[in-house]
């Protein structure tokens, strides 16, 4: 037990949690915006992978990391728009479209990567983002180097959580998004453009998913591999449910998952991996399914989730 505690109270460990949590936080917030507007986006896995690829490629070819980030965000937004056109504008079934977007995004990412870089024995890599120390704050013992000596994207993720909560709960736009996700009919009567609000939320969500993918290839691994996302999109789907469609809780769930993940990595490195690490990877999915069984009675999911809106159908 003392070994476990020793591992926890280390600068490197705390820093690792934040690094693992960052892409999950972006992806989870993206999925949450989409679902709060009533659109389940199962395309997340493919959107993250394609954005991870475009971000990496643009950064590799241009030498500019921020240009890569911009490319990833645009890719994510475009893929979000694709999902939005199919499910919101055309009203097609969200889960099947989502699987289609994931298959399409994954295939396109693999295809373009292979086309641009060919088959190489060691994957090409870039010099990724470097941690940026915040003056004074980074001098705080333990917490300072762990929290205030991080990648800029990590700070961005930390800021994104309260900003998302503010946007969702305290702005007219956020109110409209929640309305079209809860009761599109009433929103429509109140003059809220259901289609446009849903489109905006899905596109914003896609952009955040793109940022999540970019973090993986441009800060965490500094290379693109075919397994770079490896189910993180599905984790985000689970975390949104586990976090009850709330920015704070969802981000908190991402942090909790990152903690468990970082802990299992540490224990494994310390030679204490008696339990196969897949048992930990399974955890968020098992917990979410259990949580869903208990939660459903309170019906916290957006009411109109999975339901396309067609004005003429009354």
């Amino acid at each position, binding site marked *: 037990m003392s070994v476990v505690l020793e591992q926890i109270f280390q600068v490197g460990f705390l820093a690792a949690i934040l690094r693992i949590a960052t892409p999950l936080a972006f992806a989870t917030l993206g999925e949450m915006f989409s679902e709060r507007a009533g659109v389940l986006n199962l395309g997340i896995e*493919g959107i993250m992978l394609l954005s991870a690829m475009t971000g990496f490629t643009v950064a590799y070819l241009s030498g500019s990391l921020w240009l890569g980030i911009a490319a990833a965000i645009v890719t994510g937004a475009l893929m979000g728009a694709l999902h939005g056109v*199919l499910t919101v504008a055309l009203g097609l*079934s969200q889960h*099947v479209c989502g699987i*289609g977007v994931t298959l399409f995004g994954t295939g396109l990412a693999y*295809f373009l990567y292979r*086309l641009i870089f060919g088959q190489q024995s060691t994957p090409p890599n870039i010099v990724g983002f470097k941690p940026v120390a915040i003056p004074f704050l980074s001098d705080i013992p333990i917490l300072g180097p762990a929290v205030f000596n991080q990648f800029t994207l990590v700070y961005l993720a930390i800021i994104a959580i309260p900003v998302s909560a503010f946007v969702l709960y305290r702005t007219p736009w956020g109110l409209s998004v929640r309305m079209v996700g809860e009761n599109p009919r009433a929103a429509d009567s109140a003059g809220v453009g259901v289609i446009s609000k849903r489109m905006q939320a899905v596109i914003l969500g896609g952009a955040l998913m793109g940022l999540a993918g970019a973090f993986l290839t441009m800060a965490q691994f500094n290379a693109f591999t075919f397994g770079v996302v490896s*189910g993180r999109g599905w984790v985000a789907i689970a975390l949104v449910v586990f976090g009850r469609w709330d920015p704070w809780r969802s981000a908190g769930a991402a942090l909790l998952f990152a903690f468990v993940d970082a802990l299992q990595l540490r224990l494994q490195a310390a030679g204490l991996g008696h339990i196969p690490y897949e048992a930990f990877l399974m955890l968020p999915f098992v917990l979410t399914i259990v949580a869903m069984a208990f939660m459903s009675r309170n019906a916290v999911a957006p009411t109109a989730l999975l339901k396309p809106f067609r004005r003429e159908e009354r």
Partner: protein
Amino acid sequence: MMFRLEARTTTPAWFNVALPVAAIVAALVLCSGLIALAGAGVFEAYGVMFSAAFGDSYAITETLVRATPMIFTGLAVAVAFRARFWNIGAEGQLLAGAMAACFVGAFPMPGLLAMLLMTLAGAAAGAAVAFVPAVLRVRFKVDDVVSSLLLNSIIFYALMALIETVWKDPFSGYPISPPIEDAANFPVLMEGTRLHLGVLVALLAAPLVWLVMTRTVFGFRIKVTGENPQAARYGGIRVERVLVATALFSGALAGLAGVGEVGGVHFQVMSDISPGYGYSGIVIAMLARLNPLGVVPAAIFLAAVMTGAEAMSRATGVPAFLSDVIQGTALLAMLVALLFTAYRLRRVGGRA
């Protein structure tokens, strides 16, 4: 001239063929841009693809072997979606079926008995996995889309954990399960090919499932439950029971996909035993318009694209991942095409 969208109540029968064909053509046309981007001739690339998939009898057997697991997952999804049980979990059910079949097949026993038990165990394992989202839905009103999707990850990690630890083949350096007994290997139907017994079973399963869906009370209940659960309830159908039974049926079919891969192709379980056959099942079921008979040509199409893409890659240098893009595009194109079953374009007003 102006056009107006009108709701459509019935669709002509030829739509069942025309829509998937149109979707496939649209997908191939859209993806030809990627072939051109790769600097290859579009017709040459598709030509190589076609002849590699259907060019000679060996190629045809390889395509059929590849199609077999997808026929099963396609049937699994088609059956489930008919009842509006949104089974996104065929992938996990396939893996569970493969694990159960491999576990049973490793015990020494007469070949015929082994194959029978492997089939039963695989079907049962697939059904057991599908049972979870079904019960969660009817008991706790849990959304089946998300729960069945998340189960895929759970089963995958369970498989990985097993083949890396207690179930690892001691004679292999890789995370891979011990092989099944030689006697349990499915017999090859044609000398010199990989055409195994499971292929025949899959081809027979499709008409059988079609019979169940169209000619039995169970099939009728599935259909009514999917189309109008309220009416079904008034008609005395216990909708919850039908949903659970459909899930078991669907899961068993997806489990059989795993049985065939273990018994006829890989003879053991590894992490990449399914390159997403469960998700392909969704593409196939949609292309088939949920008709079990349509599942066979749809699965053969995807299998042909997959086997053909590898040959195309060798011949033209176009990355074989084109097959993944075609698969995704075909699904999205089919969904758009389905709009024509709900709406029709009607010309209104005079000439412009």
